[in-house]
């Protein structure tokens, strides 16, 4: 009995050891693969998440949302989980996401967060440090200023950067050549060239007049004078001659822009640019690049170039975060890893013109060959400055937008307008004074 028992024990032990060794070896190989790759092995995940549903929220732009839809079937194949991609235009994306977070509704498992909402959303998001550490997720792959400003708030990593951009000027190389001009290096030159280039049906200047875009055009003209928006204690500095000068620069350019431009949204400006009506256009490159070089979509294919803004531009950066209410944190993390993998960053850049937050994408030889503007955009991203990221951002930027509309397009006094904005910002800051110093680095 004892022998028998012993022999059985020995046999069983051997099998267990073999099985265990295989499992350990398999796990080690898998762990190694997971650490080296950004996405885990399909077979294992498939069994774990089979039948689950993930709801992800993106900006409706034909870029980030379309990229999500592209990989959703692949994610299902890999994990067994279906993905419901929800998208809203930028104008109501904040309100939708913020309402979901604040009311703890839990409608979304992953939210694409604009970095300017980081401070406001932070209390409602699930920190990712443990997952990053567990899977050896490589945070060093990101452009340094993007990694520092997008998804990281108050010492906490709440999001993984998934897209970014820096505004630039698309200019018509053929028209500049004809006029014997080089691309502008200052905003004053931009205005001077706009006057020269405005002829017939072509306008020399343009930006997106509507919504949140006007602030960016004003900010760059302000930052060109090397003055920060606020001092270290967050006191506004822009109600100054420099702020007024930035408004004057915009006003000077208006006669050389289409009359309806103050009412333009991004697609309207893009249409005007691609149909050859604009000699200079202030754009977000990621919305333009893919279509502008396609002769089927663009009358200016082969006849345009891109330069960074003469002054530092406003940074655009997005990060994928998991709401604290999500019951599917691990699955959501798998989605984030898949969406932000280096392979997909390159794919999204090629297919949708998405600006990657990863340095390797911008230096990829195939991409640089296809998009010669890549080094320019990368430099612009590195040089760009962040806007407010504190919870008061939505109210502060609404005031800025509305007041700039009144003074740039209508006849409100520039200095009085800037003083009014500064007063409003000060009262917003008093509600909940920031605990850190103001910085634009």
């Amino acid at each position, binding site marked *: 009995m004892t022998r028998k028992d012993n022999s059985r024990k020995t046999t069983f032990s051997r099998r267990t050891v073999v099985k265990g060794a295989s499992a350990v070896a398999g796990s080690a190989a898998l762990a190694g693969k997971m650490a080296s790759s950004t996405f885990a092995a399909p077979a294992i995940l498939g069994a774990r998440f089979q039948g689950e549903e993930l709801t992800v929220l993106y900006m409706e732009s034909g870029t980030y949302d379309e990229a999500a839809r592209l990989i959703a079937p692949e994610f299902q194949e890999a994990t067994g989980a279906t993905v419901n991609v929800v998208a809203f235009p930028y104008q109501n994306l904040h309100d939708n996401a*913020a309402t979901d977070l604040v009311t703890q509704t839990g409608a979304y498992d992953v939210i694409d967060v604009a970095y300017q909402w980081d401070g406001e959303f932070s209390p409602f998001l699930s920190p990712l440090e443990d997952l990053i550490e567990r899977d050896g997720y490589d945070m060093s792959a990101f452009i340094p200023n993007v990694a520092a400003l997008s998804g990281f708030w108050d010492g906490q990593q709440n999001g993984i950067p998934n897209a970014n951009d820096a505004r630039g000027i698309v200019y018509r190389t053929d028209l500049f050549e004809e006029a014997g001009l080089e691309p502008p290096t200052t905003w004053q030159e931009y205005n001077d060239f706009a006057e020269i280039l405005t002829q017939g049906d072509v306008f020399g200047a343009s930006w997106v007049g509507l919504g949140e875009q006007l602030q960016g055009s004003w900010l760059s003209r302000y930052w060109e004078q090397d003055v920060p928006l606020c001092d270290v204690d967050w006191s506004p500095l822009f109600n100054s001659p420099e702020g007024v000068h930035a408004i004057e620069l915009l006003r000077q350019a208006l006669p050389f822009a289409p009359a309806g431009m103050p009412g333009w949204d991004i697609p309207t400006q893009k249409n005007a640019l691609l149909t050859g009506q604009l000699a200079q256009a202030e754009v977000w490159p990621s919305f333009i690049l893919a279509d502008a070089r396609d002769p089927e979509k663009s009358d200016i294919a082969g006849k345009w170039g891109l330069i960074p803004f003469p002054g530092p531009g406003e940074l655009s950066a997005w990060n994928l975060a998991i709401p604290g209410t999500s019951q599917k944190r691990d699955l959501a993390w798998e989605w984030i890893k898949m969406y932000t993998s280096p392979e997909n960053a390159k794919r999204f850049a090629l297919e949708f013109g998405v600006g990657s937050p990863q340095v390797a994408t911008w230096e990829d030889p195939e991409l640089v060959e296809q998009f010669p503007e890549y080094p320019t955009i990368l430099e612009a991203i590195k040089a760009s400055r962040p806007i407010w990221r504190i919870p008061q951002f939505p109210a502060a930027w609404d005031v800025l937008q509305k007041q700039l509309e009144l003074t740039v397009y209508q006849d409100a006094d520039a200095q009085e307008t800037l003083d009014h904005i500064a007063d409003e910002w000060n009262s917003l800051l008093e509600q909940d004074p920031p605990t850190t110093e103001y910085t634009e680095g």
Partner: protein
Amino acid sequence: MRTTHRSRLSRIGDMPTYILFLVPAVVFLIMTTLYPLVYTFRLSFYDWFLNRPNLDPKWVGWDNYIETLSDAVFRRSALNTAIFGIGTVAAQLIIGLCLALAVAREGMGMRVVRSILLIPMIMTPVVVGVLWRILLSDNGLVNYLLDITGIGTILWFVDPKWAMIGVMLVDIWQWTPFVLIILTAAITALPSDPYRAAQIDGASRWQTFRYITLPMLWPVILVTGLLRFMDAIKVFDTIYVLTGGGPGYATEMLSSYIYKEGLRYFDIGSAASASWIFLVVVVALSLVVIRARARAAES
């Protein structure tokens, strides 16, 4: 007499049944209307930001009301809302009445015309906003038509005056059919005797309209106007899509002001106080119209 007394007693006996049937509706109303109203009123005395869990709600008394009333954007929004509400409802009543007089006849053709005229009202406000944003754009159909008729291009989303006129035109286009339906039904239901008497007396068409149709329709016009006004001043989606309240604050309405305070900035005390001011004004205006209707009905 005895029967009446018995009937009364029987009614009193049925009271528990009546109450039983009424309770669900009353409870539902309390939960969905009264409680939120009272709770909103309570919130209006607090300084409370829902998006900042680090800040506790703070009792501020009437401060939110004082701040709201002294906010230039609130006052501008209130003025815009009044202009929008009065302008659109007046136009809808006049156009709707004219159309109703024209189509309030029997026949297949009229039924088809009435059905076609109802289409704008069936469309969702966001679709209406998107549609008209395209139609009113610089190179849109409206400007094309204005151009070929020699009027010239109008920058609907740039000029503050035209932006307000633009959003009003869209509302008039969408909601005139509502007035049309009600007034068509009212005209069809008017008694025929006064018209026969007027015909015998040799009254002209204008006199018949002025002294018979209009006085008899007046109570209906007032109620329709009140319903439309209460709806018009709550306009949100169409303007949100069309102009976003701009340029500047040119088309900012009270509903969008409250929306931003509450659901964008999460300043819930300010949103609650603005809502209550809005509510009090609407109720006061409604009472005036209801009184006017009662007087019209009496006369």
